[in-house]
Each structure stands twice: as structure tokens, then as C-alpha cells.
């Protein structure tokens, strides 16, 4: 049995089509190339600014790799088709932006509950509603976490640059395949439309993960059973004669619906949560800059992490002990590490392009005495180094006054 994208000829083809070296491209394009290198061979989507270039790149490149591109009639159909394709063994992806992401939420929940691997790219744009359609934002932090209904775990990753978009997309696919869970790539319109130099590697340099398949007929009988004790059931793909039943209703380990027994629902939903909690270390990823002795700790993500780093460097030049942590996996949130770092800090700043979303997660992990201050900007224009530096300086100033009192 082959999960498509795995054929040996694919490596040769990737090498030939995209020889390693430096390229100049948009974040959206980098996401598409990341998906191709990760083995994505099915894309269904609906055009929306600022994510459309992902669809355009996939439509052009997928057929070269014997992959399928299909433009669906809407976003709801797009993620539905992606779920369907994933059950046939194709690594599958869709990409959208704010309002389209809202439309996908119901079937995202379906994918969570049926443990269907897929990658959903949300190139965040300004909102609510149609908002500023062409402008970037970071307003979907909680839509990614809680957009679909019910108790559910999710994994969301967020890139900070064009090159990072390439690698984070690959990581999103790997996490999704490994843990049988939809993974959200929270990009944003600014990175999506920025052109930068990126290095395309040799396909051999890229670590690729494939979903676990049942080893035998017996394992295939339990598409939602913890047959290996690692909480991740092997996935019996359609078309293999397993007679698999998949439903978005509460189901038993054998896939059959049981919505009446409280224990069945409890057991299933708790396993889904535990599957992510137990493997948190493998899922978590963050970057740290100057955090060893940081008294002013910046926590920033996505596009805002870049001016944040600039501001930290400028602050250091002025003798201010500032440091930065950038969660790359934003859900589940690396709160434990932030808690550790916050012990040394007198102030925490959270720069983001919204009126304060990730800051709420930060606050949950920080002791009350430490002020957690948002550096927020909306309107579609990214934060600048100067704006963030100003906040660092006034925080340093306030702390000097406090210690002088």
C-alpha cells in the first residue's frame, strides 16, 4: 500500500523541477512548495485574498508531480473534499483566509473527530467580516483554537518569514500525519504577500512523516482504537477492503456510532485530548532570543515576531535586558516555558497584530505580580521596530522608577 507522494520517482522529480538553491518568492508560494516537498498530492480550495497564490501555485505545480488540484464551489466543499481525499491515502491540503476559515470550521471539527490528517492554511487577514480584504492581521489565534464546536484538541503552527513558511508547512504535514489530526498553518497576509529569498533544499534533506497504517486485518477493525497504546490509531484507508465506517457522530473504537453511552463519548474525546497532551514535547516548538537574562520578556508570534526581534536587538544596544520568545507551535501553547522565563522578568510585552489574543494565553501562565502588556496594532499595517522599542523603553523606565521608590 502506497501513500501517494511516497514513490521513489517523486524525489527525482522534485530535484529536477525545483533544483536546490536560492529562490525569490512570496510566502504563499513558499507554503505551496513546502506542501509539495512534504508529499501533498491533493489540493481543494476556493479563491480568497490573500491566500489565492497558494491555489494558483498548486494548480500549476501539482500535475507535474501527478498530484490533484480541484477548485471547489466553496470553502465548505473544499475542506470536505480534502477530508474525503485524505481517507484514500492522499496527503491533502486546503488554504483560505479569515471568512473562508470561518466556513471551514464545521468540517474542521469533523476532521478532528474522525482523526483525519490534513493541513488547513489560514492566511490571516483583517476582520471581522470582509474587513480589509487585502490586509494582513493576526486575528484568528482563537478561531484556530476554538472555531469549531465542542471539546477538542488542535495543533496550529505559525511561520515568521517566507523561508519559515516553507519549513513550517512541512512540519504541519508531519505533525498531522503522525498524530492523525488536522493541523492549521496560521500564516498572515503580510508574510503571504512578501517576497523574500528562500533556500530550497534537496528533497533528501527534508524529513517526511507518513501516517501509520494498520499492520493487519485485526488492527484495521479498530480505526479509532488505541491498538498500540500510543493513543494514535492506525488509519485503515478506503479502497482496501476493510469495510471501514467513518462518522462524525460519537463512535466506538470500531467506528460504529454510539451516541447514547456517556462512557463512549467520554473515552473518545479524552483520548483525542490525551493524544496531543502526551506528545506535547514533539509538537511544541519555539525560538528564543536573548532570554538568558531577560528582564523584559517579549512574547510574539508570526509576522510580529520580526519587528519584535529588531526591537530587542535595539534595546540591547541601549543596555536594556530585553529578550524574545516566539511560539512556532501556537496551539498547544508553550506556556510552561513562558512561565519559566517569566520568573526572571519584571515585565512581559506581547506584540501582535490584533487587540490582544495570544496575550490571554500568556497571562494564564504568568504570576500576577508581573505586568503583561500588549503591544497591539490593527489596520493592516505591521508593527514597526520603533513602536515596539518605545514600549520596551517605557517598561524599562517604569521598572527603574519602581526600584528607586
Amino acid at each position, binding site marked *: 500500500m502506497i501513500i501517494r507522494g511516497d514513490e521513489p520517482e517523486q524525489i527525482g522529480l522534485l530535484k529536477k523541477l525545483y533544483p536546490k538553491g536560492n529562490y525569490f518568492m512570496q510566502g504563499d508560494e513558499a507554503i505551496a512548495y513546502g506542501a509539495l516537498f512534504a508529499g501533498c498530492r491533493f489540493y481543494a480550495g476556493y479563491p480568497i485574498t490573500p491566500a489565492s497564490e497558494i491555489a494558483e501555485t498548486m494548480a500549476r505545480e501539482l500535475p507535474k508531480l501527478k498530484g490533484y488540484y480541484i477548485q471547489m464551489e466553496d470553502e465548505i*466543499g473544499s475542506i*470536505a*473534499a480534502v477530508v474525503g481525499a485524505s481517507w*484514500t491515502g492522499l496527503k491533502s491540503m486546503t488554504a483560505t483566509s479569515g471568512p473562508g476559515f470561518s466556513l471551514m470550521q464545521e468540517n474542521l471539527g469533523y476532521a478532528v473527530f474522525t482523526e483525519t490528517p490534513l493541513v488547513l492554511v489560514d492566511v490571516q487577514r483583517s476582520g471581522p467580516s470582509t474587513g480589509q480584504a487585502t490586509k494582513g492581521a493576526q486575528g484568528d489565534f482563537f478561531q484556530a483554537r476554538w472555531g469549531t464546536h465542542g471539546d477538542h484538541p488542535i495543533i496550529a503552527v505559525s511561520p515568521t518569514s517566507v523561508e519559515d513558511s516553507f519549513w513550517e508547512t512541512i512540519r504541519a504535514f508531519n505533525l498531522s500525519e503522525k498524530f492523525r489530526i488536522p493541523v492549521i498553518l496560521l500564516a498572515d497576509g503580510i508574510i503571504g504577500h512578501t517576497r523574500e529569498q528562500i533556500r530550497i533544499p534537496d528533497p533528501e534533506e527534508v524529513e517526511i512523516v507518513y501516517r501509520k497504517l494498520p499492520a493487519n486485518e485485526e488492527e484495521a477493525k479498530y480505526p479509532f482504537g488505541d491498538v498500540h497504546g500510543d493513543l494514535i490509531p492506525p488509519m485503515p484507508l478506503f*479502497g482496501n477492503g476493510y*469495510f471501514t465506517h467513518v462518522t462524525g457522530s460519537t463512535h466506538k473504537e470500531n467506528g460504529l456510532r454510539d451516541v447514547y453511552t456517556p462512557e463512549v463519548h467520554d473515552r473518545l474525546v479524552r483520548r483525542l485530548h490525551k493524544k496531543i497532551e502526551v506528545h506535547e514535547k514533539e509538537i511544541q516548538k519555539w525560538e528564543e532570543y536573548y532570554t538568558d537574562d531577560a528582564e523584559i520578556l517579549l512574547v510574539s508570534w508570526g509576522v510580529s515576531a520580526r519587528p519584535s526581534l529588531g526591537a530587542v536587538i535595539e534595546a540591547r544596544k541601549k543596555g536594556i535586558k530585553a529578550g524574545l520568545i516566539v511560539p512556532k507551535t501556537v496551539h498547544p501553547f508553550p506556556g510552561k516555558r513562558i512561565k519559566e522565563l517569566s520568573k526572571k522578568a519584571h515585565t512581559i510585552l506581547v506584540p501582535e497584530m490584533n487587540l490582544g489574543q495570544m496575550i490571554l494565553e500568556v497571562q494564564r501562565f504568568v504570576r500576577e505580580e508581573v505586568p503583561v502588556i500588549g503591544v497591539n496594532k490593527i489596520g493592516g499595517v505591521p508593527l514597526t521596530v520603533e513602536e515596539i522599542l518605545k514600549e520596551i523603553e517605557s517598561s524599562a523606565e517604569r521598572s527603574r522608577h519602581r526600584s528607586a521608590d
Partner: protein
Amino acid sequence: MAKQIYTKYEMAKYLRKEALPTALCPGCGGGTVLNAFANAIDQLKIDPRDLVVVSGIGCSAWIASPYFLADTLHTTHGRAIAFATGVKVGLPDKKVVVISGDGDLAGIGGNHLIHAARRNIDITVILVNNFIYGMTGGQVAPTTPFGAITTTTPYRNIEHPLKIAETVASAGASYVARWTTFHVYQLIESIKKALTVKGFSLVEVVSQCPVQFGRRNRMKTPAEMLRWFSKNSIPISKAKNMSPEELEGKIIIGEFVSREKPEFTEELNKLIDEVAQYYRLGGEDAD
């Protein structure tokens, strides 16, 4: 007990025994549809291993999922055809069948129905039209006859019903037919044809729901509803010579469309082969 009864029937070999008995009400047309579908599969000698059945939400969505013993995907409300589209692209050599109701496929899912027909993707849709939202309690549906009583049109329905078969035929499907649960043998033949035709095929089955529709509209028993189907059905050949006034309230039955045209997954794979071939041969240098 129930399992023993069901295994007496030959077609029971196609059913997921552990899921029986079915959740359908006594007298529901769903059983007839399941029986007709199983007979069509049997007569065509299709290995259920070569079959993926997708359904949405509601009574009719339960007909084949979970009861039919094949790979079955029970999806969200209205989206079965969109899910099936992904399945068919991934498994172009398998038979992909959608069985669901009128509310699911033509109400909330109407957009996917029209576009799958336009795309002409090789999916067989068996749409069970019982004029009502049955499972949620008998609310008005896009197919409820003008003037009918439902729980959300307690005085009478003032909306006009959607003509599903006609709509899908004009949207571009390869094969479209409509029968009622009274016309069982024609129905089996049509399902067989739909499964064999390359391209998008729709079999609309007008089916009785005595519990939610019949009893509120002076047809309390299943037999009364079947008699109504029998009396009011007009073959499409005859309907062609009748005026719209004469056809008011009638059920037009028969084959609406049967035509050959390029099918989506075949065209998609053809395109991929062409493009892949070009790039394998070093065609990119020619840019």
C-alpha cells in the same frame, strides 16, 4: 433476535450485521431503497470492496451508512457530495455512491449537487425525496408540495418545491432518473444504469414518510402513500405532451437524461499524465 430475522434474507449479506436493526420507522421507504440498492449491486456483481458509500445527515443518510457493508463515510449535513468528490479523485477506479435525503442533498447541500453535476464527476447519487425533514421532526423541506402541512408550515406551505431531477439534468449530469418506492423494479434498473454510466448520475427516489409527512397530509399509512405515488406518477414520455396545469402536483417518473460527456476524474488524470509526461521529458527547458 433481530439479527436472526435479517440474516434470513439473501441481501442481508451486504449489510453490517452489528449495526442492525435499522433505525428507520416502520413503513419508511428507506428500507425499499436499501433493498433496491443491494439488489442493484448484487445483479451487477459489484464487489463491495470496490464501493465507497458517502452520506450526510438525516434518515435517508442512514440507509447505506452504517448499514451497507462497504467503506462508508457519514459526513456533515449537506456535504456528502463534496466529501465524495475527494474520495472519487483519490480512488477513481472505485464506485463512489452518495445516498442521502432531499433536505441534505438539495436543501443545505444544493450547491454541491449542482456543481458536481456540472463537473460531471463519476459519482452516483441516490437522493431519497420524502418531501420533509424527517429526523428533525417533520419541518418543511425544499421539496414539500405547495399547500402541504408540516410542523413549520402548520397553516400550509406557501413555497414552491424544487424539481430536483430537472435541476440536476440541466446542471449537466450524465444520467438522471426519478422513480418512487412504488416502482421498485424500475428503480433497481435505474440504479444499475446510474452505477454503470460514466459521469455524474442521479436517481431521485420519491419515498414515503408516513410518520412525519403522511399523517399530517391525510395519508396515515405507508400503503396510502404508495397508492398516492401510483396514482399521481406520470411517465416522462407522457408528461411531454401535457400542459403545466395538467402536471400540477404530479410526479414525473422515468429517465430524464442519459448522455455521454467527458467525465471529471478521467479528464483530470489525462491532464496530469500530459503535464507529468511533458516535465519528465525535460519539457521545462522549452519554456
